[in-house]
């Protein structure tokens, strides 16, 4: 590689760029003209109901499935340049892939043997913070310990894109908090990019820099977290002002006991809403419910 190329690698060019992705599973679209961009140094939450296409999108990015459309990951096509791409991409999936018989020591040996950017000392340092010992086998570990091992292995690889598919599924709250703490303290920096899918939205929403909602294989909302508060406002509308509020076309409306109504507005200036009732910045769970309304109906 020449110098010009490596400079281009650290530009602001998107880490992932998808256009018109299509994938059918048993005749049903899992990706339907999907398009999105993910920039460098971002922590992106890919959020959607079960069966929305999250995992399919991630598998496409990782080059694990065939699909139609245009997809560039770190400038490469995952369908044809997968081996090259995998030097810069790591992932943890909800289905643990570590064999049950393997010992911690052997797992480290293995990754050190196959991955040129694996830093063994770093991995061993991460493991010092856990109860894992070199002799321990995966089958003797709790689910939380397996994820700790997995995370230590992955964080010791100097990859530029880390993909986490439901990484904390089935873990108790202590392990979940610890997982994200380690990620922020020992791994993430402005040259790295993390994509996370999870159903525990409220746990990661402050960690995210960006969010994507996916539904029926389409990206239905793509936003930077720090602009959500300008774009969406949640108002607890006073009983007497309902008609006035409805005239501003809320995207969601929900009547509460004792006469108040919660309304979610998109793109309406806060000054126009201030008189209607108490306003607040909606959290991701509120937005998710509003955007996904009718999904299972």
């Amino acid at each position, binding site marked *: 590689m020449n110098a010009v190329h490596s400079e281009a690698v650290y530009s602001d060019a998107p880490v992932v760029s998808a256009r018109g992705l299509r994938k059918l599973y048993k005749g049903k679209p899992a990706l339907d003209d999907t398009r999105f961009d993910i920039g460098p140094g971002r922590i992106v939450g890919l959020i959607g109901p079960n069966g929305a296409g999250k995992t399919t999108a991630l598998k496409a990015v990782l080059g694990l499935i065939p699909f139609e459309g245009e997809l560039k990951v770190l400038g490469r096509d995952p369908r044809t340049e997968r081996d090259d791409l995998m030097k810069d991409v790591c992932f943890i999936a909800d289905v643990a892939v570590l064999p049950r018989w393997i010992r911690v020591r052997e797992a480290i040996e293995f990754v050190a043997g196959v991955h040129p950017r694996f830093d063994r000392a770093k991995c061993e340092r991460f493991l010092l913070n856990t109860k894992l010992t070199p002799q321990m086998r995966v089958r003797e570990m709790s689910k939380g310990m397996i994820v700790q091992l997995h995370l230590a292995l992955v964080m010791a690889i100097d990859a530029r894109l880390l993909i986490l598919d439901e990484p904390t599924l089935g873990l108790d709250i202590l392990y979940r908090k610890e997982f994200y703490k380690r990620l922020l303290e020992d791994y993430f920096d402005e040259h790295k990019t993390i994509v996370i899918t999870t159903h525990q939205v409220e746990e990661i929403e402050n960690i995210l820099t960006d969010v994507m909602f996916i539904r029926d294989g389409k990206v239905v909302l793509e936003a930077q977290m*720090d602009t959500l508060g300008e774009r969406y406002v949640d108002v607890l509308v006073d009983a007497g002002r309902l008609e006035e509020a409805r005239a501003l076309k809320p995207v969601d409306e929900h009547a509460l006991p004792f006469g108040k109504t919660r309304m979610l507005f998109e793109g309406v200036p806060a000054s126009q809403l201030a008189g209607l009732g108490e306003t607040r910045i909606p959290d991701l769970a509120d937005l998710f419910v509003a955007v996904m309304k009718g999904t299972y109906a």
Partner: protein
Amino acid sequence: MTAIQWSDGAPIYRQLKERVIAMMLDGVLKPGDALPSVRQVAAEYQLNPITVSRAYQELADEALVEKRRGLGMYVTEEAAKKLLANERERFLREEWPVVLERIRRLGLDMQDLVHPAVNGHRGDA
């Protein structure tokens, strides 16, 4: 693990900034003290580092903290003075007009304000 309850009324970077300012006003953070690193705060409070950087940047813009190259952020010597000046300015701009309006409405004069009636029956305080 430290739990912080963020309110949903204001962006989190601003709440974080206010928290640091409150610690300065309370004397928990004194001039010359180091702020914890962005990475540490992000990990401990489970925030994205951009949020933390933004809060720190605003504190730096207001000269309450300064960056020392390679070492991190430190509370400035003039932070206490600045904060007092800021608080005074805010009081005069936001709180005082409201109080003044109330004083007028209640018909209180200088005498009443400087030497309040002992029984307090002229005001409702």
